[in-house]
Every structure is written in structure tokens, then in C-alpha cells.
């Protein structure tokens, strides 16, 4: 081959290669030098600066990163890769990305729901348990339980509701009856539901509370009709699609905003009772609706609704007088709750993901509600607010005692709920049987999480005698939930 031609080709090759290297170097530092500088400064201050941390910063700030993500998605598509490297995501039919939840222990959530159900039944407050729809069904014959052990909590949830006389609403069943399919319910690129699906769920929840508990929503006709909303749609690349791009999902989603055409007047109040903001639905519930922002497919519209990372807040609808509702939910139902706030006087929102060992549920339950709704998603495996205890000491070294003595037992509150005289007792189980030997807390007593309390039994408490020796084990008992806990 002629040397000149080869030389020209070599020059082109070198130019291309060096252009790529230097273009990325120069453009990245030119466009993002402030972000890079700040990140490195913080790492230095935190003592975490290393070549790997600098690499992470550059990866995050690299010029053209979004385009490169599309290239990586296209590459994975060409290679036929459906499962992400870390096993967290799976691309199903038509580019829909599913989340692999893995295996979780739902026992705590189920226990806590059982307690809540029992507690609310004492107060005659209806509890509605909503089973959110799972998006983890994979085609191609792969195990349904690739999503983890969802069935471990779906069935018991229904059981709790049935046994305790609570209301139960299954998203999947409902969507099937109204003819919604997978593409109507889920985004391709985000794990949350479409706004259309959440709005439909809001209407169904209202109808459920009305038809089964007689709760009247005076403006139901207005707020439940889509005609009364301006529907705006924006292109949307959701959280599941951010590392694979739109090509991998065969396109982006459309995120719908339903903006009320009717008058609204809302107030947002935090857990201390302080007013955070007041104004229209768009201003308060939709967080200003990005009125002055430039948006694109990377705009994360989901966070337009309610308060992400806030564990406890209340939305007050100043134009409605009836129905104060407590809602326990993660972001899976945030738009449902948002539209529900249009039909109620107040909606108090608890997000268990951010409880951080504070008894927000206990705080919320100091108030009365017309209904409590729990949108039980798999993300609540850390519990909604539960009881746990550890016996720290007893005044006798052995488990057997002489009935003529008194015994004190110190028990530590290792759960996340505050113990009060309302339904919390320590029981002395004799040979593991509950003969009703129990001590409650004096009125006004609060044993906070992490605190210990000394319970004192008198001789007269042990009126059931077999012989002079007993085998005693101390446990805590929640009479509202009919749950024993601790040891």
C-alpha cells in the first residue's frame, strides 16, 4: 500500500484519538470545573480524597455524559443484555425496566401493621391497607420471584385486613378491572407509577372509603373528574433509565401533570405544627411546579409531589372541612396522596423510610383521624413503627422465686414506639403461660425508645400458685395489637 496513503491514514488516526482525549479533558474542566473543584474540596475535607474518588468525580462530571450513557445503553442492547451488572435491574418487554428487589424480611412490617390495626380498632378508626402493584413480573419463563419474596407479604397483608375487619385495596386487581395494562400503570424507565395510574388509585381509594365506611367527600365529583384538570405531559427519563439511557428502553416516558382548574388553597405544616408554605395546590403540593426552571428529559418530575425525605408533615386543604386522614406511604403513592388532599380537610403523611428511630407514628396517633391508609410497599421492611424490648435485669438471679417476695424487672424499650399506659404491659409468664399477671404503666408515663423502665411485681400479683417454685419469663404485651414482644 502506498506509503503516502498510509501516512495520511495514520495522521487521521492519531488526530482522532488525541482529539477524543483532549476534547473530553478540556471540555469537562471548562464546563464543570466548579463542580469538580467543590467535590474534590469536600473529599479533601472529609479525608476521603483518593485516585478512585477523583475518578468518581470525573465520571459524574464528564462532558457528554448523557450521550455516553445512551451509547452504553445501545451497546447493551446490541449485546442482548437484559440484566444489569449488579443484578438490580432487568429490561423486560418493550424496553420496560424492572427492579429486582431481592429478598427482604417483611415480618417487622407485618407485625407493625397488625399492631396498628388493633390500635385503630380500639378507636373505631377505619384502616385501609393498600397493596401496591408489583412491577417485577418477568417474561421468558424466568421465576416470578426474581423480584424477591413479594408473595411473602402480599398474602399476609390481605389476611391481616380480613381477620381484623380492615379495608383492603389491591392495586393490581383494581387496575385489571378498569382495563389498565402494564404500560398504563408503570413507566418504562422509572419505578413509580404513571400519574394516570395514581389518579385512578386516588379515585378508587375515595370510592372505597365512601362505599365501605360511609365517608363522604363532598367535592368528590369535582376532584375525581379528569375534565377538571389541565393535563400537561413532559418527556421523562426515570430513575431506572438514568444508567442505561432512552435507547435501551426504546424511548422515554411521558410524565403527566394533572393541574387543578378549580380553586385550591392549601397549607403545608411540619411535625412541630409550623407552617412551611401556603398557596395553591401547585405551589404547596406540587412544590411550585418548576415554574421558572428549564426542563428536559432528565428532570425528575416525580419529586414535584409532596415532600421527599420528610418523615412527617400535614397538608391542610383550607377549602374542605371534612375528613382528616393519616397516610403511611413511601413515594409509590405520593401523587395518589396529593390528589387525595384535594378531597380532604387534611392529609397527614408519614414516610417510614425517614423515621430514623423517632416515634413519628406514635406522635401522629396522638391525634384522631377519620381514616388511616397504609400503602404497603416492599420498601417498608424496616417497619412502620414497632415494639421491641430486652429484659436488662431482675431482682432475683434465678428464674424461680418464692411467692412471698416482690420482684422488680428492668426492661429496655429497644423498639421505635413510645410505651405509654395505653395498652402496654409487662407480663410474667408462668411456665410460658399467660395467667394475666401483668403490670401496666402509670398514667402519664412515657418510656421512649432506648429508655428502660423498672416494673415491680408484688406478692399479691402472683395469685395463681402451683407450688412454691415458679419458672417465670417476663415479656411485654401490647393489648391493642394483641402482640407479645421482647423477652
Amino acid at each position, binding site marked *: 500500500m502506498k506509503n503516502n496513503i498510509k501516512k495520511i491514514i495514520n495522521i487521521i488516526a492519531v488526530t482522532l484519538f488525541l482529539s477524543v482525549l483532549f476534547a473530553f479533558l478540556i471540555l469537562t474542566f471548562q464546563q464543570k470545573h466548579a463542580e469538580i473543584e467543590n467535590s474534590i474540596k469536600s473529599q479533601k475535607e472529609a479525608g476521603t480524597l483518593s485516585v478512585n474518588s477523583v475518578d468518581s468525580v470525573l465520571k459524574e462530571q464528564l462532558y457528554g455524559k448523557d450521550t455516553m450513557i445512551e451509547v452504553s445503553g445501545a451497546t447493551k442492547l446490541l449485546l*442482548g443484555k437484559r440484566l444489569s451488572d449488579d443484578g438490580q435491574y432487568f429490561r423486560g418487554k418493550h424496553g420496560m425496566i424492572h427492579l429486582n428487589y431481592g429478598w427482604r424480611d417483611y415480618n417487622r412490617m407485618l407485625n407493625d401493621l397488625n399492631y396498628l390495626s388493633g390500635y385503630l380498632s380500639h378507636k373505631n378508626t377505619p384502616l385501609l391497607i393498600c397493596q401496591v402493584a408489583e412491577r417485577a413480573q418477568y417474561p421468558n419463563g424466568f421465576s416470578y420471584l426474581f423480584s424477591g419474596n413479594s408473595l411473602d407479604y402480599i398474602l399476609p397483608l390481605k389476611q391481616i385486613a380480613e381477620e381484623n375487619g380492615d379495608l383492603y385495596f389491591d392495586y393490581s386487581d383494581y387496575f385489571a378491572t378498569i382495563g389498565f395494562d402494564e404500560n398504563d400503570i408503570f413507566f418504562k424507565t422509572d419505578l413509580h407509577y404513571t400519574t394516570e395510574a395514581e389518579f385512578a388509585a386516588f379515585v378508587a381509594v375515595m370510592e372505597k372509603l365512601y362505599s365501605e365506611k360511609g365517608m363522604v367527600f363532598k367535592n368528590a365529583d369535582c376532584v375525581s373528574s379528569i375534565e377538571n384538570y389541565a393535563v400537561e405531559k413532559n418527556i421523562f427519563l426515570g430513575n431506572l433509565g438514568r444508567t442505561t439511557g432512552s435507547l435501551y428502553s426504546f424511548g422515554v416516558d411521558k410524565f403527566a401533570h394533572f393541574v387543578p382548574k378549580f380553586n385550591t388553597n392549601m397549607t403545608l405544616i411540619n411535625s412541630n405544627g409550623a407552617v412551611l408554605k401556603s398557596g395553591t395546590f401547585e405551589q404547596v403540593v406540587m412544590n411550585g411546579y418548576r415554574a421558572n426552571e428549564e426542563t428536559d428529559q432528565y428532570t425528575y418530575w416525580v419529586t414535584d409531589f409532596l415532600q421527599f425525605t420528610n418523615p412527617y408533615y400535614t397538608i391542610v386543604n383550607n377549602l374542605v372541612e371534612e375528613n382528616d386522614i393519616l397516610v403511611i406511604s413511601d413515594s409509590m403513592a405520593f401523587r395518589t396522596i396529593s390528589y387525595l388532599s384535594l378531597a380532604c380537610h387534611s392529609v397527614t403523611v408519614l414516610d417510614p423510610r425517614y423515621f430514623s428511630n423517632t416515634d413519628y407514628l406514635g406522635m401522629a396517633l396522638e391525634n384522631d383521624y377519620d381514616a388511616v391508609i397504609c400503602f404497603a410497599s416492599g420498601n417498608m421492611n424496616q417497619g412502620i413503627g414497632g415494639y421491641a424490648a430486652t429484659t436488662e435485669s431482675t431482682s432475683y438471679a434465678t428464674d424461680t422465686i418464692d411467692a412471698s417476695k416482690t420482684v422488680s424487672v428492668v426492661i429496655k424499650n429497644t423498639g421505635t414506639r413510645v410505651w405509654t399506659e395505653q395498652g402496654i404491659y409487662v407480663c410474667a409468664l408462668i411456665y410460658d403461660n399467660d395467667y394475666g399477671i401483668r403490670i401496666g404503666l402509670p398514667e402519664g408515663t412515657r418510656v421512649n425508645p432506648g429508655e428502660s423502665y423498672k416494673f415491680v411485681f408484688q406478692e399479691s400479683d402472683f395469685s395463681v400458685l402451683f407450688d412454691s417454685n415458679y419458672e417465670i419469663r417476663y415479656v411485654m404485651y401490647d393489648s391493642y395489637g394483641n402482640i407479645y414482644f421482647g423477652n
Partner: protein
Amino acid sequence: MVFSSVVFLFLFLPVTLAGYYLINEKYRNVFLLLMSILFYAVGEPSFVLIMLLSIIANYGIGLLMWKTLDAQKAVRRLILVFGVAVNFIILFYYKYYDFTVSNINGLFGSNIALRNIALPIGISFFTFQGMSYALDVYMEKTSVQKNPLNVALYIALFPQLVAGPIVRYSDINEQIDCRKETLSLFTSGIYRFTFGLAKKVILSNTFAVLADTAFNMERASLGVGMAWLGAIGYSLQIYFDFSGYSDMAIGLGRMFGFSFNENFKHPYIATGVTDFWKRWHISLSTWFRDYIYIPLGGNRKGNVYLNIFIVFLVTGIWHGASWNFVIWGLWHGLFRLLELFLQRRNIKLGVPILIKWLYTMLVVIVGWVLFRAPTISSAVSYLKCMFGMGGVNANVESTLFYLLENLIILIIGCTCALPVVKWIKRLCTKDSRLELAKEVCLPIVSVVLLIVSVSLLLVTENNPFIYFNF
């Protein structure tokens, strides 16, 4: 710092290239040395002194041997032994101390405290390079290098510092002093580098996911199919990981005017374990051949079987302070000895070449299971699954899923393990139009592979380099 990282590709490399070619030619070696030390220091700030100590020690040994050129052989031998010992002590302390102590404790019931010594990256490579310099000077294969910067550059040169290839001083000494950076060499370096990067990021990292899935599975759930899939996946992972890195090292060397020897020659087409070791990690196997096997007598003096046994024992030990590496080395040694036995007895089995290849692949793949598993018992349990003695709860559905999931990459990987480039080159030399087409396509393919590799790097946290651990 690894070559397949954004910080290397878009910060270190362009800055080093720019500085190297803009600087006055007489300062290029110094600049390259400083950048090489920086390259090591940013990744291993506390261990750069170890590397510098190795450089100083080997330089000093070389000088001593030069000064005693006319002395008795015994004196020179003593200096050599001292030099090798210094290198060996550094390597032993950082790599084998805790392993040795824990085995002594296990054997004798003693309670000597372990030191939990962190392993400096690349220590096996740069100590062997240092030893190679001292040995070559002793054997008068090369003259001593009086310029300490040149010795330093030889040992610390960043393209091959942390994962080879192990470069002999005699192969590179002239290039250090008077190499010529040419356009065609630079271009071939680019191609080599980008192809190596693609092998690492696109192929090796993908196979790593498959291998990790299989090797991390509960053995009761690991059926025959999945076990083989994982073993083949790891075989391809380690090949593309290491050969990809070697390609990048060779490519980078060429960009700075150096020509390193090849380290891999399509080992997965080998038709015998003997043949395999002429194709796999050539720089290491030739190092052991020249500095252990031949001095022991090779196939001319002493017991050739014992000599080969020792070489493979040391090969296993070199890879890591763990019994599974030793067993892996001896596993290969066993078959190498078997082949030698047959060869020496002139026993020709008349086996078709396909069967020879299958036998080789079986030995190699089983060997990789020994190599990959964290413990011997884990390797044994994995091998049991491969041969149908495990996986009672195995799920065929799951195996089919992973096979289909990785089918395209497996086809690409197996194809790339063949000498495809060689075949294409041979084809192109027969037709000038094909040759032109090849030359035109190369830059485009190279840039495309670079972009695709970078795009995958951005979205993955999983970017291991297996041979960094050695």
C-alpha cells in the same frame, strides 16, 4: 490508577502525552520517569518508597557487579545472591509473610502474630524486573547501566509497572537511550491500546459478572450447566482482563517509542499444556525459563522432571500467597510433565487435533476454577458441581436464562480468543484493496471502541483487574 479509568484516559494520559512531546527530547526520559512515579504514587502513596527502594537496590547491585567485573566469580555470585535476596526479601515480606506465618502456626500450633501487611500493587512485577536487571548484568547479557535514571525508568515505566509484561532490561536498554518515536509506531500504539481497552471493558468486565454469579451461587443451586458457564466465563474474563491490560501496556509503550514483547499468543487455541504456556503470560514463563529452569539445568542437566516441577511450583507461588494458587501451578505442572514423558518416550497417541484442544481446554478451565475460588474447599465444591456431583436444587431455567443473556458476548468472546486479527491481516496482504479498506477502517473502529469502552466505564462500578492482585 488503572488504564481503564476516566482519570487515566482523560487526565493522566493526555497530560503525559502532551508533556512528553512538547518537552525537549533530552528531558523526555526524566519526564516519563516522574510521571511514572506519580502514576504509582497516586494509587499507592505509601508504597512508592518500596518501589524506589527496589530501584536503588538493583541499581546498586548492578554497579557493584560492574566494579567487580574482574573479581572472582565467587565474589560476583555473592553480590548476585545478595541482590536477589534483597528483591526476594521485599517480595516475601509484603506478599508471603502472613501466609508463611499462618501456615507455621497451623503446622506447629504456634501463635506468632500476623501483621496483616497490605500488598503493594505490582510488587511481583517490578521486583522481577529488578531481579532481571541484576541477573542480566551478572550473566553479562547486558552491560551495566550507570545512569540511575535509566534503571529507574526501566523498573518504574508506567505502562508495564503494575501488571506487566515483565520487560527484560536487555530488551529495552537501547530503547531507553535512543528510541525513535514515529508516526506509524504511535498509530499502532493507539490501535493496540484501544483494542486492549475494549477487551478489558467490553469483554472481560461482562464475563466477570457471569463468573461472579456462578461462583457466588449456593452450591446446592449450582447445576452442571451453570457451573460450566461460570467456569468458561471466568476463563474468558481472565484472558481478556490480562491480555487486554498487556495490549494497553504495549500500546502505551509504543506511544512513547518503546516496543515491548508480546505477552499472549492466543493461548486458547493451544493443543497441549506445553503449547499453552508458550502462549500465556509469555513474559513470566520465559522469565522462569531463563532464570530458574535453565540455571537448574533445563533439559540437559539434572532431573528435567524435577526442574519443571520446580518451575510450576514457583509459578503458582508467584501468583499469590494461597494454597489454591500453588495447586493451580502444580495442576498445570502435572500435565506438562505428562506431555514431556510422552514426548521423551516418543509415544505418539495419534489423537486428532480437536481432541488435543479439548483436553487442553479442560485442563485450563479446571485450572482456572482452582485459581478463582477463594479456598480449596470452595474450588472442590465448584468442580463437583461441574461434573454432576452437586447442585441438587439446580434450576435449569436459571441456567438457560444466563446462557441466553450472555450468548452474544460469548460468541464474540470466543471469536476474539482466536487469531482473528492475524487472519484478517493475512487476508488483506493478498489484496491491496482489502489492505486499504483495513487501513481505513482501523482508525474508525479504534475510536468507536474507545467511545464505547468509555461509555461502559461511566455506568459501571465493577472494573476489577485480576492481575493487579499479584
